């Protein structure tokens, strides 16, 4: 089941309307990653040269996973990979697009291949990735 998505078709979702410092701290608490880049403004600005604290890359990857799992569920996921292109700072809005790029028969079903892209409100690419789900034939 991939909802109404056919090969070559895409679906775009507003993943988060406005990332806040609380959003970032919430992820730090759940993941256990308290790297000060993510919550200590002087450290992030003076030491690392960012305009502000930045969200964890894995927050964005986790947020973006929904693009695929909302279509195919969690049980069928076989691969999920991606690259972090630009930082997310407080005030950013994130929008994700998932595209079903193709399907291939496998030994036990059909592999569905997806591309994922997450952009901020300026249209800047934040995260790009791929996913593979194995669904019944």
């Amino acid at each position, binding site marked *: 089941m991939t909802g109404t998505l056919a090969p070559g078709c895409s679906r775009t979702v507003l993943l988060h309307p406005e990332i806040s410092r609380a959003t970032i701290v919430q992820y730090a608490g*759940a993941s256990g990653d308290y790297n000060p880049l993510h919550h200590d403004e002087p450290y992030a600005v003076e030491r690392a040269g960012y305009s502000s604290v930045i969200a964890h890359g894995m927050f964005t990857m986790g947020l973006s996973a929904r693009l695929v799992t909302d279509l195919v569920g969690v049980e069928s996921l*076989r691969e999920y990979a991606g690259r972090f292109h630009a930082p997310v700072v407080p005030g950013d809005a994130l929008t994700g697009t998932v595209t079903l790029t193709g399907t291939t028969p496998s030994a036990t079903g059909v592999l569905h291949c997806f591309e994922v892209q997450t952009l901020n409100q300026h249209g800047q690419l934040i995260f790009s990735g791929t996913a593979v789900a194995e669904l019944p034939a």
Partner: protein
Amino acid sequence: MLVAEIRFPVDPVHVMLFARAVCDDNPAYCGEGAVVAPPTFTEALQQFIPGYPWRPRPGEPWPASAKGSTVVLHAEQRFTYTRPVRVGEVLVARKRTGNSWQKPSRAGGVLSFREIVTDFYDGNDAVIVSSVAVEVELGADR
């Protein structure tokens, strides 16, 4: 080289908190009906790593907090799954170092990349999730 083996109990409250943190209200992750964890949940292994450097400790400075030292960023991440992580199971994570390489930065310095590979084993000693994190170290000349 195997660098660590860590026991990772998959607690339902932890799964719920993680799902909330990635803004995913899928009922499979939350409440009494929770059965599985979100795809990136294994990142929360950090909570169980003894001496994890990015966990605050009273009186101890952050690693490499002196001015002019390097900053390490997470550049890329890959997961492969044979099945999802299930609520209530106890995993064992085995971490090892993967490949490492360097390339010139646009600023004229050097970017150093390294892979951290973590395999998550279930109670039958079968790998259910493999995670490869690619980290990049930005030199003080960035």
